[in-house]
Every structure is written in C-alpha cells, then in structure tokens.
C-alpha cells in the first residue's frame, strides 16, 4: 500500500547527497531493507526508486539519497513539509549476527550500512567501518561513524594518494573479522569479489528495479547458478555466490 507521509526534515550532506526524514511509526525495518519511493504523481518518471533505510529510531526514518539521474533529481527538489509517497519496507532484512564485523562502504553505499551500524551499535556488536569516496567532502556522517564504530578508516581517491576502499583493506588484518558487509558501486563489488577475502562477505546490491516487491522478475541477479530477485531474495547476497557478468 502506498503510504503518504510528510517530509519532516530535509538536509543536504554534500552538493549531491541529501537526506529525507519521514515519520513511519508502525514498522520495524531491518538493515538491507528499503522503500520504493514515488518520484512523481504523474506518469513520468514512471517507476518508484528504491532507497535504503539509513536510520530508524523512534518511528523516524532517514533516507540518504545521491542525485544520480532524473528521478533522484526530482526527489532532491522536495522540501520539508511536502508529501512523499513510499511503499515498503521491502527486501529480506538482514539478521544482525553477534560477530566481529567489518563494514565496507563505497560512495552512497554507505546509506544501508549506516543503518546496519546503528543496529549493531544498539546490540553492542563490535565493528570496524571502512568508507571510501571520490572526494573528502563526499564522505558523509563521519563523526557519527567515528562515534559508533570501533575503528573507522576513511579514504578518498582524490586526497590521500588515490586510496580506494579496497586498497584500505590491505592495511587491515581481514582474518581478524568474522564477517564483512559491503555496499558500493558494482565495480567495487566486482573488485572486492576478486580479492577473495577469507571471511564471508555479504554484499548489498543496488540496482535498477521494477516493482521492488518480488512480482515482476525485473531485477535478476545470477546467484549460485540461478537468477534471484534482488528486491525479494536480497538485496543482500553472499558476495562469492554472485556472478556479475550474467
């Protein structure tokens, strides 16, 4: 059912990343879950846009959105007080495990991991956070991450000797973690897969969706030899099971 909610707060984190806060008291979203956000009440753009839960506390949900194309552009023009139509939460929620965890975020991939971090922090699970972006100013919520992660590493391709997130992993003793969670551009996930880390890595997949709720089969990802639906069977999959090229 489409919910019509009011935007409580809008905040620009960088020149192309903004946050929208809405109040949705009757849900219990889990990390990895997302909402389908209606861009327009007219038919162009037609499809809703999937946006992850980046934070949820006392009924207030935060979505962090990067302006990519025309849908997110239109969303970025919405202001506090205006209406927003959302459907969800969708996706299999991730059950947070009491394991020493490594969170790996690239770019706007930080959004769902922030929520995962929030949950882990709530359950006093220890985790480190590696977070990379193009430019220093693209790194959002740094102080918040520093507060809740045990260790946090921030890297940018521009500033510190063109370090990428994956480069940063070299500096870590990856085997000291029980599990890793990664979210970022597809290219990052592909490179990460190639690293073949010795621990289970769970990837949060961000792609273009149709319905977002398992009906249209429009969001296929080749996982362990068969097509899975990103929206309904994921969006979190074990990284090594994914075939990115099919």
């Amino acid at each position, binding site marked *: *059912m*489409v919910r019509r909610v009011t935007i409580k707060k809008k905040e620009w984190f960088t020149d192309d990343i903004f946050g929208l806060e809405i109040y949705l008291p009757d849900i219990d979203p889990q990390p990895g879950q997302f909402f389908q956000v*209606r861009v327009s009440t007219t*038919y*162009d*753009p*037609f*499809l*809703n846009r999937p946006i992850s839960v980046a934070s949820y506390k006392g009924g207030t949900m935060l979505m962090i959105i990067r302006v990519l194309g025309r849908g997110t552009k239109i969303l970025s023009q919405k202001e506090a007080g205006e209406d927003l139509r959302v*459907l969800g939460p969708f996706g299999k929620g991730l059950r947070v495990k009491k394991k020493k965890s490594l969170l790996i975020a690239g770019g706007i991939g930080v959004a769902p991991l922030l929520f995962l971090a929030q949950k882990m922090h709530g359950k006093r699970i220890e985790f480190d956070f590696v977070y990379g972006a193009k430019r220093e100013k693209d790194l959002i919520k740094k102080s918040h991450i520093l507060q809740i992660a045990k260790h946090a590493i921030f890297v940018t391709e521009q500033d510190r000797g063109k370090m990428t997130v994956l480069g940063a992993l070299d500096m870590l003793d990856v085997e000291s973690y029980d599990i890793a969670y990664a979210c970022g551009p597809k290219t990052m996930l592909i490179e990460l897969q190639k690293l073949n880390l010795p621990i289970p890595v769970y990837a949060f997949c961000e*792609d*273009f*969706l*149709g*319905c977002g*709720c*398992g*009906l*249209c*089969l*429009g*969001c*296929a*990802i*080749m996982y362990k030899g*068969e*097509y899975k639906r990103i929206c309904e069977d994921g969006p979190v999959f074990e990284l090594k099971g994914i075939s990115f090229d*099919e």
Partner: protein
Amino acid sequence: MMKLFGITFKNRVFIASGVFGFGLKYKKVSNRVGAIFTKGITLEPRKGNAPPRVFETASGLINWVGLENPGVEKFCKDILPKMKKLRTRIFVNVAGSEVIDYERIVERIGGQVDGFELNISCPNVKKGGVAFGQDPKIAASVVARARTKTKLPLIVKLTPNFCDPLRIAKVCIGAGADGISLINTLYGMVYDIERKKPLITGGLSGPAIKPFALYCVNRLRGLGVPIIGMGGIMTGQDAYEFLLAGASAVAIGSAILRDPYAPLQIIKELKKYPPPPSSPSERGRIKEGEKKEYK
C-alpha cells in the same frame, strides 16, 4: 458480479500476466480482483533473460524478462495447489516455443483452473512468442490444437506489433478461441549511448501505450467474443475507457509495478461509473447451460 464465458467473476478488473507472479504474495489483492492471469508458463522451466530486464521510459517501461518460470510440472505441483486457495478466477498464461507446447501445457493443467490465456504475443523470447501471433496460420493452429484439449474458456492474447490484431483475432475465433485479450507489449528499444549498442530490447508497456491499446480494443469490438482490454490502465477512468471501447473486462499490468494495490483502487474508482453498455458478446460462444462444466 458479472458473467463472461458463462462463469461469474467478482468484477471486471483482472490482473495481467507477468506483473503479479502467481498472486500469492498480495493475497488481499488477489482475493478481490475478478481474475488473475499467471506469469507465462512454458513446458520446461526457463531461467529468463540476463539483466537489465526492466528499463523505464517516458510514462512507461520496457521489460525483457523472458518468461522466467518454473515450467508446467513444477507449476502444477508446487504453485497451483496454493493458487487454488485464492478466492478469485485463475487463468494460466500459456507460452510456447513450439506450436505443440500450448496444447501440452493446457492438457497437463487440465481442469484445475478457470481458463487459459494463450500467449502468442511475447516479444521477449527467441522462439515462438510474438512470431506466432503475427502469423495467422500459426495463430490459428495454436488455438485449434489447444481447443482439442480443453473445454475451459480459451482466451488468446494478441500482439499489435507489425500485424493487424483484427485479422489474427478473426482466425483465432474461427479456430475456437472464446475470447481475446490485448494488447501485449509493443516492441521497444533503448540504446546505450556510451557503449553504442542496445541497452535493452523488449516489450513496451504502461500509460505511454494506452491510446494505442484503446484503439486496438475498439477495433476488435463486435467480433462476438469478450475482449479483455489492457495497456496502460492506471485508474478507474482508464479502465472505463476500455470498457466503453468494447472490452468486457480489463487487466492491470504495469500499474502494479508502481503499486501492488493498484487494482483495488481501480475497482473502487470504477464503481463511480455507470455500468458500461453491455454487449451481447459478453457470454461469448459459451452458453449459459454449459456453465456447470467449469467448477
């Protein structure tokens, strides 16, 4: 409540094939629509096409799903038992890469459902699909052969791509079809300007194609069999336009991608309009008396 093919339906709002899976997720919706058309079922399981499978276009979308489905065996064993518990009419969308596939699937499923929709109009498969629906001879033979395997309502789903659906409709009715559904998706393509090759080639649907779909439905009115009209229906008003144009019922497709509850809203909105001028074709070729044959 209304009657088509001699059987009753809760209402005239159906769910189109391919956008609602098997109706098992949003049961509240399934139980309140007139009928559900399943995702296309093939003889063998199909894993579907490689992504990207959907691409948004102006007021619509292109899909290139490629009939991903578990195949008729698994459908009968695992899915149909669950679907039977839904309180709605169930029509199986039957897709084949050979002419013979259709009759086989119809035969395998037998009397377990309320009817069949022969999909000779899918643009997203290499073999069969829309190619069958563009050729009057093949179209007629698909229908005629399936007809020998069932007395249930047999609807044939037509394509408007590069052929005249009126011509195909006539031969299909001649071959024994009880009803027509249309339109299946239009051909559509988007180019990847970076890589200089097609990004997606598939079927175009949504409000963008509504005026064309309405034209097609209107063109096929008065053939003496019920038409299930579809193509871009988003509101009760859209649905009513199709009924006025000659459809006896409408099917909701892409609207569901924006909102899985869209059919309920459309049912509600449609109630505001006076009943459409009923046509004698509504019962189609199936007589009142034969009704008991269908559960």
